[in-house]
């Protein structure tokens, strides 16, 4: 019994002594620089990017990620309202509504009457 146990321990030690360096050599980078075995695990995790599975089959649909409510008559155009956490994208503010400032100087507008709008 003792002999069997000794053989088992010896074979395990032998496998570890031969197998781990061999595996390390197989995983060594092309530049030949040897690194600790633990680094291999780090590399593996970096080499395999996290892939997020999604059930969205088309990408041009107005999705929940950027939902808005029925805000047609909602004239609050600031970024600091307290309704949710996605008020402004990248810190960009909402544009100034018509009538509060002059149209942009893009060469399309004359200097006459300000824009008039109505919805029927």
């Amino acid at each position, binding site marked *: 019994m003792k002999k069997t146990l000794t053989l088992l321990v010896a074979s395990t030690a032998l496998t570890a002594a031969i197998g781990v360096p061999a595996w390390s050599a197989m995983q060594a980078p092309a530049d030949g620089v040897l690194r600790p075995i633990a680094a291999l695990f780090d590399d593996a995790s970096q080499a395999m990017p996290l892939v997020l599975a999604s059930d969205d089959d088309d990408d041009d649909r107005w999705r929940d990620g950027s939902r808005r409510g029925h805000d047609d008559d909602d004239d609050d155009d600031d970024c600091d309202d307290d309704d949710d956490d996605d008020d402004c994208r990248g810190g960009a503010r909402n544009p100034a509504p*018509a009538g509060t400032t002059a149209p942009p100087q893009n060469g399309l507008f004359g200097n006459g009457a300000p*824009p008039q709008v109505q919805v029927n």
Partner: protein
Amino acid sequence: MKSILATLALTTALTIPGLAMARPVTLTTTLNNYGGDGAYLALYVTDASGAYVGSLWMAGGKSKYYEHLSDWYRATGGDTAQVNGITGASVDAGRTLEITLDLADALFDAGYTLHIDAAVEDMRDSPNEVAVPLTTDGAGTPVTGRRYVASFAYDM
């Protein structure tokens, strides 16, 4: 007296061409009953080479949704300064948006095209929903959009 008359003539001569360089133009956009929430619409102009020139109107006040107006967004980088002072509410299905703008005469018969991008919550985005050349002959002629716009016309 003579100098006053000369001054008057000069100011008149300078003013009249200025007045003639722009005219009120009414843009009328009617949406069909697509069965969704209010639509965001971006009305903008490109030149003969297809390059973005500027925006005429933005229907929809929250900039976080502008990425869905994908052609406009690509051309402007989502710059809200492009639509400062020319932004209003989104437009409900079946409604008609009527905008009257003082537009430069140089926009017409010079190869410019008016585009409309449209987007509706939980529905497909529709870049270039409408593309209509700006010509004096084309005024008053309604065109149909691809998905949400039942008709669009400009009148001078």
